[in-house]
């Protein structure tokens, strides 16, 4: 149960007392951002109040000075805290994804042209791809190498052709492409834009979170207005006017 691993954020004493019970609820809840935020916030709270989670206080006289409301001035703080935690989680996930993407494109070692020519003559190369002043080699043992060649190429293609004529059973596949480095350009643009995209996503998420917290207030207000109208405190006309104002 990977969801339960979130409970490791709680202090040990708290876990000894409540982990089993909370774990049962966590297993039952669908995995969502709100669940993660709820548990992370709970863990912060538990660390801020280490006195909570005592084995059992039944019959004891202590505990009178523990505030029953989480330490937070006003009702706005939990919302801000929630958004903040969500932003941090998103940021960490974003940076993690960035690193994962980078890790997926393995680093190709760059070697000298002289070494490449030796490898070709020794028959250790399976395929060569020439692209402008870059050549990528696939060796017979599966490794990939890259080298820089003079442009236009007069040496490498020649060396491959010579080698192929000398040893027809082991032909080196030669491919010359005219600068179709589109993918790498797209990739680098995407990578450079990724932080910006992440930032926009974060701002969008924060805005929608605030909008969500505000939305119910409008409907509460409408319900109160409806109640006032029902009880004859305000007229239908006044109600409609207020309703338009609230929903605008």
């Amino acid at each position, binding site marked *: 149960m990977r969801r339960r691993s979130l409970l490791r954020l709680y202090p040990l004493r708290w876990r000894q007392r409540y982990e089993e019970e909370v774990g049962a609820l966590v297993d039952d809840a669908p995995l969502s951002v709100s669940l993660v935020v709820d548990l992370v916030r709970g863990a912060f709270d538990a660390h801020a109040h280490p006195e909570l989670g005592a084995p059992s206080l039944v019959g004891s006289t202590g505990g009178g000075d*523990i505030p029953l409301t989480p330490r937070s001035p006003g009702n706005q703080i939990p919302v801000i805290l929630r958004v903040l935690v969500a932003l941090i989680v998103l940021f960490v996930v974003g940076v993690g994804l960035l690193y994962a993407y980078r890790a997926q494109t393995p680093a190709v070692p760059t070697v000298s042209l002289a070494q490449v020519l030796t490898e070709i003559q020794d028959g250790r190369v399976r395929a060569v791809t020439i692209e402008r002043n870059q050549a990528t080699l696939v060796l017979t043992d599966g490794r990939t190498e890259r080298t820089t060649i003079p442009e236009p190429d007069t040496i490498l293609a020649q060396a491959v052709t010579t080698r192929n004529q000398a040893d027809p059973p082991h032909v080196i596949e030669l491919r010359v492409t005219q600068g179709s480095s589109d993918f790498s350009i797209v990739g680098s643009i995407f990578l450079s834009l990724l932080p910006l995209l992440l930032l926009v996503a974060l701002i969008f998420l924060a805005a929608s979170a605030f909008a969500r917290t505000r939305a119910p207030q409008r409907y509460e207000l409408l319900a109160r207005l409806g109640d006032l109208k029902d009880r004859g405190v305000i007229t239908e006309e006044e109600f409609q006017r207020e309703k338009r104002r609230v929903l605008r």
Partner: protein
Amino acid sequence: MANHKLSSEALLILVSLAEEPKHGYAMQHDIERISGRRLGPGSLYGAIARLEAADLIEALSDKGARRPYRLTAAGSRTLSSELESMRKLAAAGTRRLAAR
């Protein structure tokens, strides 16, 4: 205990336990039923831990994941006085709105 400020979660738990002892899962469902609010596990047990530490509720037995809780005498008194002050507040608010 009377001068404790109850959080809304704590109040919901006390109201839920006023009916009968319940474990966390049953509280979560009962609270959703009576208030429309679903408390996450972290919020629920944050409030349970506080109420327990303040002696307003107590764990009944060691039943592992399904440990039931019940109101203590102090918990009943606190809930009663909290509801009374809410009743007064609601009455005052309604009266003032009606007089406008």
